[in-house]
Structure formats: C-alpha cells, structure tokens
C-alpha cells in the first residue's frame, strides 16, 4: 500500500509534468470535436472538385457522424494511447529508475497497480469526455438519426473496458521488452488486426475487440452477447497484470 500510494502520486506528477495528460487528452477529446466538424465541411471541400458526392452526403445524419467518430477514435486514439504509454515499465527498467525505490523497499505489485489504475482511470475519463463532447457537437451540427446521450455513455463504457484491457497488455509488453517502442508498435498492430475478427460472428464475442463492434451498434449496444467478451477481457487484464508483476520481480533492476 505504501508503494501504491507513492507511485500513484508519482504517476500523477509525471503525467502532468511530462505532458502525458495533454497528449492523451488531445488524442481522445480533440478528435471528438474535429471529426464532426470535418464531416460538416466535406461538401465545401468537394465543391471545388469534379466529383459528385451529394448522394453520400444526403444520408449523413447524427448516427453516421457518430459512427465515423468511433472509427477514428479507435484508430487515432490507439496510436496516441500506445505511443504515449509504451515506456510505462520499460523506461523505468532501462533507465535504472527503479534502483532507489527498490533499494528503499518498494514492491512491484504496488508499482504496477498504481500505474494501471492511474492511466486506466485517466484514459477512461478522457474517453467519457470525448464521447460526450462528440455527442453534443454531432447533435449541433447534424440532424436525424436515433442517437441519444445514453447510447454515447454506453459506447464510452465499452471503449473504457477495451482500453483497460489494452493498457494491461501494454504494461505486460513493456515489462517484457527493454525498449518501449516494441511494446507500443505491438499493441497498435494487435489492436488493429484483432478487429478483423469482428467479421466472424462465432469468434468475435470471445475477443476484446467485440467491445468496439458493440459500441457502434447504436440502438442495441448492451446485450447478452457481451457477457463472454467482458468476462474474457477482465480475465485477460488480471492475467496480463499478474505476469507483468512476475516478470518485473524476476528482472535484474540494476
């Protein structure tokens, strides 16, 4: 508990002083505002080009604008998320920053949990802000569709669970590799490629990326098909954190 509280405070200070809050906020909330604005500006952009996309734009409503945001959030948000936090453990080990804390009696479990809870909570808050901001902005700029604030909150919750899973995976990979960039790139590739399985109904419910699929299922976001996905995501989070702690305990710190 002593290590947990010490590292929690340290992570907050670090994220604030090294602009990690700002970067993660930009990666989540900024796109929530920019996506609907750019969609609204599309007709102006295509006006000067010899292409007629009026048929496509006619069908644009709040739902389609929101779905477009979800896709962009996953693609860009994952990039920001993985590249900002890729050194979460590896930097501590590589730059020998654990020498003083460990020789002062710090314990690995407290350190890993503090990092996980801090960034898990932080990114969840940014997801919620981003999704709500997008909902209000989309509602102002577009009309029609069945999107409601409750739906935006429900999809935000599924995204939170997904990124909580992705964070545990990132921490695990960051404890495996001395260079954070390997962990970051692996998480990005893993996140993108796993979404391919969302095309296969029999398999997708057992993979965390199904959370993203259901988050985009406006009108039917929460249903019973999510149970196995959430259980598997929670189990994977526990497994990754457990193996991260085990791995760091076996590392030579100095």
């Amino acid at each position: 508990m002593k290590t947990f509280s010490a590292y929690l405070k340290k992570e907050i200070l670090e994220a604030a002083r090294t602009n990690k809050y700002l970067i993660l906020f930009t990666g989540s909330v900024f796109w929530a505002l920019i996506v609907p604005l750019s969609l609204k500006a599309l007709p102006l952009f295509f006006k000067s080009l010899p292409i007629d996309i009026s048929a496509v734009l006619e069908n644009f409503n709040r739902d389609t604008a929101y779905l477009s945001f979800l896709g962009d959030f996953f693609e860009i948000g994952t990039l920001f998320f993985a590249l900002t936090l890729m050194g979460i453990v590896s930097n501590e080990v590589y730059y020998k920053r654990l020498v003083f804390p460990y020789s002062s009696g710090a314990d690995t479990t407290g350190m890993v949990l503090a990092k996980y809870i801090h960034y898990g909570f932080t990114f969840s808050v940014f997801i919620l802000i981003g999704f709500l901001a997008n909902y209000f902005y989309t509602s102002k700029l577009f009309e029609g569709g069945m999107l409601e604030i409750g739906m935006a909150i429900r999809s935000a919750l599924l995204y939170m669970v997904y990124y909580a899973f992705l964070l545990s995976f990132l921490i695990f990979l960051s404890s495996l590799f001395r260079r954070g960039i390997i962990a970051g790139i692996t998480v990005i590739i893993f996140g993108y490629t796993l979404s391919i399985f969302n095309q296969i109904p029999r398999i997708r419910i057992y993979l965390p990326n199904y959370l993203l699929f259901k988050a985009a299922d406006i009108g039917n976001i929460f249903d019973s098909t999510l149970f196995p996905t959430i259980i598997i995501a929670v189990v994977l989070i526990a497994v990754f954190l457990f193996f991260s702690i085990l791995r760091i305990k076996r590392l030579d710190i100095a």
Partner: protein
Amino acid sequence: MIKVTGLKKNYGKVEALKSISFEVGRGSVFGFIGRNGAGKTTTMNILTGLMRFDKGKIFIMGRDFKQYKNELIKKIGYLPETPTFYDYMNAYEYLGFIGRITGFGQRGTKKRTDELLKMVGLDRKGKRKIGGYSRGMKQRLALAIAIFKKPEVLFLDEPSSALDPEGRLEMLNLIENLKDNKITIFLSTHILNDAERVCDTICIIDEGEMILTEKLSRLYEKYIQPVFDIEFEKVPEAEVSLLKKISWVEDIVENGKKISLQVKDIKHAKKEILLELSKLDMNIVSYRIRKRNLEDIFIGMVSKRENI
C-alpha cells in the same frame, strides 16, 4: 555484519564473480577496490538485492539474504555509481516519494528531508528540478536518499568519482561522520587515496576474484618496505630492463619518465641503489624514498596477481 561465501555470478558465458568470499565487521568501513570491470558493482548490486546471483550464500546481520531479502533491504542503503532519478521532480519531491515508500509518514518525511538536504548542502537548491543538477549535486542527493531510512548497512559505489576535489573532500567527511554513527559502510572505489583515508579493511577484487582482504593497518605492516621514486631525463626503457635484473629489486612500476622501484631488502637497496643508477646511461632528474601507499600495493597485487 555481512558474510559472503562462494558468491558466483555469470553474464551469459562471462564469469563476473568467480566464487568470492569475505566478511565485513559491524561498524567498519570496508573498502572494495578494483579496476573497472573487476566485479565491484556486480557485487554491490547483488548485496543490495537489485541483481540475482547464481551460487553462494549471503548473510546480513546474521540472516540469510535470499530468505529475508524484503526485511533486510529495509536496513540497507545504497548509493549507485550513476544515480538516476525522475528528472522532472525536485529534491523535496523525490525525497518525499522515497519517504512514502519507506513509510516515514508526512511529518517524518518532511523533517528527515529538511535534515538531509541541509546535511548534503542542497537545502537552498532543493526546489530546483533534479534534471538541472550537476553530477556532483546528483551524487549528494543520492547520498541523502541512501541514508534516508537510517540504514544499518550502507553501500556506496564510487561515491566520489564524479565530484570535484572540494566535493570529494565533503563526501569523505560525510562518510567519516557516518562511520562515527556506527553505520557499517561497504565502499567501492578506484580512488585509492579515498579508501586509504576512510577504510578500516581493504579488499582487492580483480577479474571477479578476491585477491586480498586485510585490515589496512595489517596491510601496511605486511608491505612496510618503502619505494624509490626516480625521475629520468628521458623515458627509460633499456634502463628499466637493467634495473629489473638486480637481485634485490622486487618490482618496477613505470609511468613515463618516472619509475617506482620496489625492493626486497631496504637496507641493502639504500646502499646499492645510487651505485646502480650511476651505471645507467641516463641523467636523473629526481630521486626520493617514500613509504608504500595503497596504490603501490594495489598495482603490485593486480599487475602480478601475487599471492601474499
């Protein structure tokens, strides 16, 4: 206080420590000296629980280190050779972080932080970001962290190597103060003058092997024979070969135009040396007899790996 037997550590196929054994008495300053890559830092990292070892036994305060590592670490302080911090923090914040880990409490941490920053002379610069500190300032902060929890055993890895002469002197004074407080100090250094000044016992390690462990006073008794320092007008080459052939010459350490000549029989040498030097075809700039210091002993031991 510390007992190490048959300690072995390999990095792949490289044997970093080849079964070393030694004992450190309570309240003493144990000087661990050796060349770069001799195994000093590896030993330190193992004894502070930051690195695993392959074979051997370690007892600290009579308890098996492997078995009671978590409890023993709380009684150990460590100053690594190149201390690394969170550069965005200032000294107060970093010591606060260490205080929370060690469970000092808010008031206790603040009191201890103020006390230590004053002791290491960083009280006025304590609110500056650590990233902007000089190497010497970082070293002093590292010492404050190492002794934060009032350890019974303190491991210092090259504590003065990054410091300027004034800082080095301050560091040695601090070590002497700690010694007065009955803290057992394990000091790794290659600055032999420092070891000579503060250590009670000297241990020489080379290529992962212990080649000597002796009380400093006993060491001087054993190597009481003085040394002749001779400076020539030019770099002596053939002259050194000739001098080495003399029966009463034990060893010659060359350093450019200067040589340090160690002898087996001082009485005989005093009578003969001027005669022998006069036979050489080279002018002598200076000549003096002095007592052997730790550096002479160290160089003699390491270069020839002689058995005492």
